């Protein structure tokens, strides 16, 4: 935990300089509100921010994330069963992952309406491809030696999957999950730029920015940042618990990680 000292100190220094600059140079609130002003806006708008959080995170991001990642994992398992499919799907999925998928947001809004369904759909499509690619890559991760060992035990394909290949794929799957949390948040928020019931983080950010009510925008950004970090570090913690056997997580070896 000693390692956390330097980044925390750095963060506090930046916050301090930000606050000092805002008061010393009288930076207009429209340009950059001081940290205290943002915290005040956060505290003053709790019901509003809470409603936006429920609409965007609980009703759009999480269902979309679960649906997209889950579907990506299942399709990954199915694709893995056939070498032909693996060779065919993997290049297509990798390409799809590099495309600006957020652009489907207006189409989803057209199909599924203004409410959370369309946002969850965008999040689901965006999270699908990284999970698919990483699942297939992860299942391929064990080397010939491990596979041969299991074959020498006359393990069935199902046993090989359960005992060797799925555990070996876990680091890849967690990588995809961590990536997917951010993608799902971005997808849901950007989809709200194309039409919402008048609630949601993306709706709030775009309308309040247009009204130059930047304190609220910053407070909403703070909520988004906290949500994103909580999801990411929550998954990172879960990863440590589930894949405790990885060398990177064994104590003592961490210093040699570079």
């Amino acid at each position, binding site marked *: 935990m000693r390692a956390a000292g*330097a980044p925390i100190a750095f963060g506090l220094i930046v916050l301090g300089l930000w606050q000092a600059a805002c008061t010393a140079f009288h930076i207009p609130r429209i340009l950059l509100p001081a940290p205290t002003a943002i915290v005040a806006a956060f505290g003053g708008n709790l019901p509003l921010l809470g409603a936006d959080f429920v609409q965007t995170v609980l009703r759009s991001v999480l269902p979309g994330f679960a649906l997209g990642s889950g579907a990506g994992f299942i399709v990954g398992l199915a694709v893995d069963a056939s070498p032909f499919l693996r060779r065919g799907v993997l290049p*297509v999925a990798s390409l799809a992952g590099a495309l600006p998928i957020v652009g489907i947001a*207006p189409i989803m809004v057209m199909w599924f309406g203004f409410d959370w369904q369309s946002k969850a759909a965008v999040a689901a499509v965006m999270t699908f491809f990284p999970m698919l690619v990483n699942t297939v890559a992860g299942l391929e991760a064990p080397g010939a030696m491990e596979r041969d060992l299991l074959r020498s035990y006359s393990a069935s394909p199902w046993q090989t999957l359960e005992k060797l290949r799925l555990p070996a794929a876990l680091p890849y799957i967690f990588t995809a999950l961590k990536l997917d949390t*951010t993608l799902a948040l971005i997808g849901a928020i950007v989809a709200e730029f194309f039409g919402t019931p008048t609630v949601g983080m993306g709706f709030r950010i775009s309308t309040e920015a*247009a009204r130059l009510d930047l304190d609220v*925008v910053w407070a909403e950004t703070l909520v*988004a940042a906290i949500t994103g970090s909580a999801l990411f570090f929550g998954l990172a913690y879960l990863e440590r618990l589930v894949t405790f056997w990885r060398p990177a997580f064994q104590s003592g070896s961490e210093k040699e990680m570079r």
Partner: protein
Amino acid sequence: MREALRRTLPVIVVVAALLAVWYAAALVVDAPQGALAEKRPLLPTPQQVAGALLAGILQPPTSPRSLIYHAGVTAASAAAGFALAFVLGIGLAIAIVNVRLLDRSLMPWIIASQTVPALAVAPMVVVVLGNIGLTGLVPKALIAAWLSFFPIVTSMVAGLRSPERIQLDLLRTYSAGGWDVFAQLRWPASMSFLFPGMKVAATLAVVGAIVAELPTGAQAGLGARLLAASYYGQTLQLWAALVMASLLAVVVVGVVDGARGVLVRVRGGRL
């Protein structure tokens, strides 16, 4: 020849299957709409999209209906943002590798910054910069730069650290100084890490530029095109703009790959 077929045939089959499913779905979805579906289908068929795309591309490049023109506007912001992220990212990576305090204090924040959905802040960045007179390319480029910055920094830091102890020791036996170690070993070794990062960064720059065009009320660019088409319910226009955005992403990745190819050739076949 057989090897090439072995690799491409599955891809062709999968793409053909996807197109077939798309086509069948479009027929089912749009059947009840009848004649209306020809102009504003809920799900256009592949050839309708291809037709709209071709019509958009074949417009004279100066026309506001030309997809080439809009793609050019988006590409310019993406390129400017990427260039900025490239310079800052590589500079910061060099600093992080050399200054231990920066590594310990800054690196965790760079990683944490990626858990913030940066695109969500795009409208604010655009409004704030517009307020101090910066409109057009600059705000879009800044958003694109913010997104592409991260993969460049992290891949470059990993690359500059990739030389192994044994290689560093060898240079020490030659009594190489810090600069020599950097120029002869660390920098060349970093390139094979940098290029995958640059590919991700380039596609993110395109995404950033497109999303930055959404809230500005911008008249030009693929994002503006998407927004206008969605506002007026012009599905064909919408799909054409989306395919154009995908083509732009493919081109951008191709450019990075091309640069990599040039570097490989200059270095005599290795990266």
